[in-house]
């Protein structure tokens, strides 16, 4: 069933039974995939399904633990990105990295420019070769123009031209449309069709389902690192595809307790930050866990940052326990009983060089004081208490948090905030990048907090987590709240539909 019915040519690139683990995390399990010349093939799956690992394996960044990569039917081993490139595999990333002060032509032929006698660089030949590449792609871009100031769409075109200059036969496009406007997407698709007609194989990744149906012929779906299906898109509906991506049973990973909601603890009214999110209103009650779902970039994190005060808002208001918060003032938000476990624990949640004790102590500097001075005894016992309560695994409380594993670092961030005794807890991707065991512990903790009357707002790209833990699910799409779904009606299909803007739920 992995073979298309009209399989005439042989695949240019094939993966057979690829597995890859990072520590205890099995990122890919027995994944197979075939790419045919002249084919645009979609790779679908939720965040964390293993798409990025698969791409990096194809690009030679990761080496698989098991399985084979076949190029024109021959097994190959990539020792690094250079090997993959030499084999004709090119990856176009969402945000290309060009040298801004070099011209388009210089970027494309970086390090291997045509030379004239005495090793002088032949500008004319470089520019002519670049112009020829642009003609092949059917795009108008001046080879001598500096890369600085090019739109992301144009930068991607330059990257594609660069790939062609390496005679790439396989192009992997990792969410190329995420930052493009409608007309830019149309032009990119024109280029992709041109490449297809010239016999290239394209692996296309996008969160926008309609694009997959628009440009791709077949789709391979991953879920939790496992291969689900490779099949023609003909005859499939978007709902079919979503079901492939998310369909699974929820289990003990989500020990949700039923709690009778109390008073409104967090009230957000018509909150707007220009160009980021618009007119966002919602409440979270005591004892409630409210999930905030949406695609990456939908504005969820930005709403949390503004509510907490790390960013300013342009309009609207926020109340915690009936107290209006000051715009752009995390210290007043904290005083009102708000806590935010941020998205990026290494940069935002923790001071990596600082000890566990001091990191947890940071949120208590104003409260564990005696006669205006930090009460070190109280600070240490507060930190120890919470580190023990959350079962952080560490050697000494004075060790730098950088010595801990990711899951334990996340527990320190949680400890740091739970130690403030918050009335409202916002957690942003609380279980991203941590192992399943710790994940279950974090979920149990969130459940217990809610049972104790804390209002929890949980931002997560992990749909099963949202459905497993949330009493209500809010969904954002392109900076707006598009749906509010009660637990009893929340399905992955409905959330995904609202998150991709397909239907107002």
């Amino acid at each position, binding site marked *: 069933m992995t073979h298309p019915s009209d399989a005439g040519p042989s695949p240019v690139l094939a993966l057979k039974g690829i597995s890859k683990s990072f520590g205890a995390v099995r990122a890919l399990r027995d994944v197979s995939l075939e790419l045919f010349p002249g084919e645009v093939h979609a790779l679908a799956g939720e965040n964390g399904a293993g798409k990025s690992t698969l791409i990096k394996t194809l690009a030679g960044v990761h080496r698989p633990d098991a399985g084979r990569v076949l190029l024109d039917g021959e097994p190959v081993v990539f020792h690094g990105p250079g090997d993959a490139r030499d084999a004709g595999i090119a990856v176009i990333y969402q945000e290309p990295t060009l040298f801004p002060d070099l011209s388009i032509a210089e970027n494309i032929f970086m390090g291997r420019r045509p030379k004239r006698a005495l090793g002088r660089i032949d500008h004319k030949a470089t520019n002519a070769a670049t112009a020829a590449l642009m003609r092949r792609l059917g795009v108008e871009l001046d080879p001598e123009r500096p890369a600085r100031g090019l739109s992301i769409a144009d930068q991607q075109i330059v990257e594609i031209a660069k790939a062609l200059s390496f005679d790439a036969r396989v192009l992997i496009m990792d969410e190329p449309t995420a930052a493009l406007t409608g007309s830019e997407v149309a032009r990119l698709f024109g280029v992709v069709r041109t490449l297809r007609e010239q016999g290239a194989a394209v692996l296309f990744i996008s969160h926008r389902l309609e694009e997959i149906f628009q440009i791709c012929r077949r789709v391979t779906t991953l879920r939790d690192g496992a291969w689900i299906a490779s099949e023609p898109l003909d005859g499939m509906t978007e709902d079919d595809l979503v079901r492939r991506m998310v369909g699974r049973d929820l289990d003990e990973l989500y020990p949700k307790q039923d709690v009778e909601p109390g008073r409104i603890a967090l009230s957000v009214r018509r909150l707007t930050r220009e160009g980021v999110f618009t007119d966002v209103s919602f409440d979270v009650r005591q004892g409630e866990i409210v999930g905030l779902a949406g695609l990456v970039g939908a504005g969820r994190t930005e709403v949390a940052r503004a509510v*907490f005060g*790390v960013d300013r808002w342009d309009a609207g208001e926020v109340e915690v326990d009936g107290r209006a918060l000051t715009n752009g003032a*995390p*210290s007043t*938000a*904290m005083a009102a009983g708000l806590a*935010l476990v*941020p998205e990026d624990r290494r*940069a*935002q*949640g*923790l*001071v*990596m*060089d*600082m000890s566990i004790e*001091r990191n947890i*102590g*940071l*949120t208590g*500097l*104003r409260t564990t*004081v005696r006669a*205006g*001075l*930090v009460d070190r005894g109280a600070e240490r016992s507060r930190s120890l208490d919470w580190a023990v309560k959350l079962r952080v695994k560490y*050697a*000494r409380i004075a060790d730098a948090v950088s010595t801990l594993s990711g899951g334990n670092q996340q527990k320190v961030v949680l400890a*740091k905030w739970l130690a403030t005794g918050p009335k409202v807890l916002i957690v942003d991707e609380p279980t991203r990048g941590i192992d399943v065991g710790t994940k279950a512990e974090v979920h149990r903790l969130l459940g217990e907090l809610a049972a104790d009357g804390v209002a929890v707002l949980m931002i997560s790209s992990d749909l099963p987590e949202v459905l497993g833990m949330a009493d209500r699910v809010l969904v954002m799409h392109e900076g707006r709240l598009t749906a509010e779904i009660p637990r009893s009606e929340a399905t992955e299909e409905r959330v995904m539909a609202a998150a991709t803007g397909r239907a107002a739920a």
Partner: protein
Amino acid sequence: MPDSLTRAIRWDTVVGALLLVLLLLSFSFVDGFGNALNLSFLIGNTLPIALIALPMTLLVVAGEIDLSVASTAGLSGAVMGKLWNEGMAIETIIPLCLVLGVVCGLVNGLLVTRLGLPSLAVTIGTLAGYRGIAQIVLGSDAVTDFPTQYLDFAAGRIGDSFLPQAFLPFLVLLAVAVVVLHATPFGRSLFAVGASQEAARFAGIRVRRAKLILFTATGFMASLTGVFWALHYASARYDNATGLELSVVAAVLLGGIDFDGGKGTLGGAIAGVFLLGALQNVMSLMNVSAQSQIVVTGVLLVVSVLGPRAARRLAVARAGRQAASTPTSSLRSPS
């Protein structure tokens, strides 16, 4: 885990030990070092550096720097001389000079926190600016006829001892700075600000406010030093304390305050200040030329940046060996 070992090679302890060794060697082998007069000179000449090093330490811990301190000190001295020539009472002049220092620090702080400019660039600018104003105010005059009791206080010793009279007020200020940095919520938050401004903000620390306070305090201490300098040397000139900022920064870094912010102790910084001061004193006694002294200071500055990093790497490597789990990077040449 080798708690005692990692502690033993902390850089501020190393500097303290070096200071002790230097003092012992100097007492034993350097002629003229141990007498009370020389020691009082040593301490008196080092006090301006020490005074400014107090706020500078807090500033560098918070990830910022102020290179305009010597110019602020010079400006304060110049204004003091000018107003004294105009016939104003010294009791009015000194508070005015301190207010001026606060304003100078506030300007630096506002430029850094409101406009988001790097403090290195801002204070190189005001280094030139404040010194220029000082020259406009006083021209090439030297004002020397300040009231005797003030001159005596700034230059005099406590009885026949080797301690300058100004040393006691300095000790009080040192104690205040130690408590502020190491024991108050404000001071403790500075370490987070310096190590990771982003994480500090997410912990509800008011980063910009903290930095503004530090720049203002630095301006205040710089002008206090300027007043002390003019009285101590009985000379208010526009070029007083020129180049002092480099000595302060060198001493603070030598004392183990990480230039990248987030690390260090005031004890280390003050040990660095007096190590540098003692070294200069000894070199003068041994008739080392002024030029060579500058070279030694420069070498020390480089060592001061290398030393703490090497000490930390060593600590990490030892901890790693003790843990005996994964192979750790040993002492590598810093990049």
